[in-house]
């Protein structure tokens, strides 16, 4: 196998001595050597069972070692891995399985009984964790002597890393039905190099992976830390965040990665700001903009730790840009510039670059991390992937130094009284209230306003924040047409698997609340929720 044509799983697993740690989960530590052996064994077993190059192999698992082994083994076998969200219901699972033509599903024991019936109905062969673990040659029961032969034969087959699919990653579906993004071997390699480079990752780095591996940001943590020779501590859930912090401390992690809500919850509902983490070197944040108020709090709480605010999309493997931590003061709120291998442009209609500091345009990306399109969806592919460039649908401005500032998702704009208003601007204003953990704003059709602004606010434990106070604050901070007509205090925001807010569900809820109340006039009506 020539260097240029190698399987990206081999490339990811290459660094590190056999005895070096690779994966940690609770009391389990898996070395580099053991990880390589287990991935090879399962890859050979998949191959021996008839999985051919390009076949889709699903993985349904939380962040446990099984998920890592299965993900890498599916890619190593020449198949295309399809990581599935663990919170899929039957319909979601069957949609994903039928659109991708899934042939096998590697499933964590916990989900095996739930997935059994669903998989049968879709004609997918189920490989439960229990049948793979503990077998004589570990994963897959292939005698060790045969594993080498099977993999050597596999490596003889030509592989074009630019076109061969390594994974189909589903978008988080925060604005609609999830789409399967086709990720090539080259995409993963290119993005991994760039990310590991700007974070200056090395063998001593250890990330706490609380983001699920089926989300592109979670997968990027695995890729980068394998390739830099570092290690990954897996946290299977964020349900008990103080326990996650215990792991961060106990495992001596050098880094933590999260979406905005990760940090908002850590800052407002745990002792994160007061606890010390001597090994912690950096924090990565992506998956939407962290409101400026939280950026300030985070830096004040851990002044010696570098905060990387970053921007990406599943359609670009994971990452598109980052703001160097030393620019947080002079470029606050910026997503920075493109990665070294990614060209980012902000284009006005007609495709010309916007005038700096004057116009707003769409972010368009090109580079080896731009994926191949959406699986089985030529229409959506043609909409977002044109001439080898990714049209992100994110609207932005650019300053004279080339730093990019996202204004909002094109489809997250509201139009109260005909004014174009960014949901994010209102959410940021709400986040300034010290009792607010997070806020999400949606628009609902309204006979008076055209589109009425409805804010959902999660307040911190023990707070007595009421909807009227939240509206008063917005009224002081924002133009009158941006002040929410209605504020609901809720226990939690609905989320997709990636942790992003499921805005469609909030819109439905906002509509329900309006039908229950007086349309167009109800102001500051509190949704019955948990009294704090």
């Amino acid at each position, binding site marked *: 196998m020539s260097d240029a044509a190698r399987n990206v799983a081999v490339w990811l697993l290459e660094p590190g001595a056999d005895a070096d740690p690779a994966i940690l989960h609770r009391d389990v530590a898996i070395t580099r050597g053991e990880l390589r052996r287990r991935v090879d064994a399962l890859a050979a077993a998949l191959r021996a069972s008839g999985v051919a190059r390009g076949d889709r192999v699903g993985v349904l698992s939380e962040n446990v070692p099984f998920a890592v082994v299965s993900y890498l083994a599916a890619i190593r076998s020449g198949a295309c891995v399809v990581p599935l969200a663990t919170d899929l219901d039957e319909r979601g699972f069957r949609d994903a399985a039928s659109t991708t033509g899934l042939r096998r599903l590697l499933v964590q024991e916990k989900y095996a009984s739930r997935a059994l019936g669903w998989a049968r109905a879709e004609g997918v062969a189920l490989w439960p964790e229990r049948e793979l673990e503990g077998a004589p040659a570990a994963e897959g029961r292939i005698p060790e002597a045969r594993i080498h032969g099977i993999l050597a034969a596999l490596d003889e087959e030509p592989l074009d890393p630019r076109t061969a699919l390594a994974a189909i990653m589903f978008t988080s579906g925060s604005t609609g039905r999830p789409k399967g993004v086709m990720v090539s071997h080259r995409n993963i390699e290119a993005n991994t190099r760039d990310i590991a480079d700007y974070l200056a990752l090395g063998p001593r780095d250890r990330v706490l992976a609380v983001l699920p591996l089926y989300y592109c940001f979670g997968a990027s943590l695995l890729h980068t830390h394998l390739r830099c020779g570092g290690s990954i501590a897996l946290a*299977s*859930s964020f349900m*008990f965040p103080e326990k996650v912090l215990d792991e961060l401390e106990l495992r001596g992690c050098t880094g933590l990665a999260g979406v905005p809500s990760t940090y908002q919850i850590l800052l407002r509902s745990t002792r994160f700001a007061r606890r010390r983490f001597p090994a912690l070197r950096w924090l990565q944040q992506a998956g939407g903009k962290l409101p400026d108020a939280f950026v300030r709090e985070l830096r004040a709480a851990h002044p010696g730790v570098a905060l990387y605010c970053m921007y990406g999309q599943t359609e670009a493997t994971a990452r598109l840009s980052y703001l160097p931590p030393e620019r947080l003061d002079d470029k606050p709120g910026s997503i920075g510039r493109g990665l070294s291998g990614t060209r980012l442009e902000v284009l006005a209609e007609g495709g010309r670059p916007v005038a700096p500091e004057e116009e707003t345009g769409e972010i368009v990306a090109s580079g080896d991390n731009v994926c191949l399109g959406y699986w089985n969806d030529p229409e959506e592919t043609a909409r977002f992937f044109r001439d080898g460039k990714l049209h992100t649908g994110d609207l932005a401005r650019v300053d004279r130094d080339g730093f990019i500032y996202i204004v909002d998702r094109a489809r997250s704009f509201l139009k109260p009284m005909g004014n174009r208003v960014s949901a994010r601007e209102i959410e940021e204003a709400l986040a300034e209230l010290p009792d607010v953990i997070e806020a999400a704003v949606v628009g609902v059709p309204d006979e008076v306003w055209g589109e009425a602004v409805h804010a959902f606010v999660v307040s911190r434990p*023990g707070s007595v924040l009421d909807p009227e106070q939240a509206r008063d604050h917005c009224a002081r901070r924002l133009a009158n047409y941006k002040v929410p007509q209605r504020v609901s205090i809720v226990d*939690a925001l609905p989320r997709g698997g990636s942790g992003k807010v499921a805005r469609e569900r909030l819109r439905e809820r906002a509509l329900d609340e309006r039908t229950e109340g007086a349309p167009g006039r109800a102001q500051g009506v509190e949704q019955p929720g948990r009294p704090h």
Partner: protein
Amino acid sequence: MTALERVAQVFRRTFSLAAGRKVDAETTPDHVPEWDSIGHMNLVSGLEKEFGLRFEVDEIMEMSSVAKILELLAKRGVNV
């Protein structure tokens, strides 16, 4: 009925578990796929209704196993 049996009943109701499905002190979210973050809030509501209590947010964040739930119930005066 013991407190554990009552808790087990709340689990079965909340997560629509089969009648024979084992719920004991060792049960954690690792064993029950439906026990995710939204499931947790439903579980807490079920427990509050069953025991006539209101839990504080700090307590809710600690309910990481059936054993922990029983511990909290005991602290709140439930006979376990």
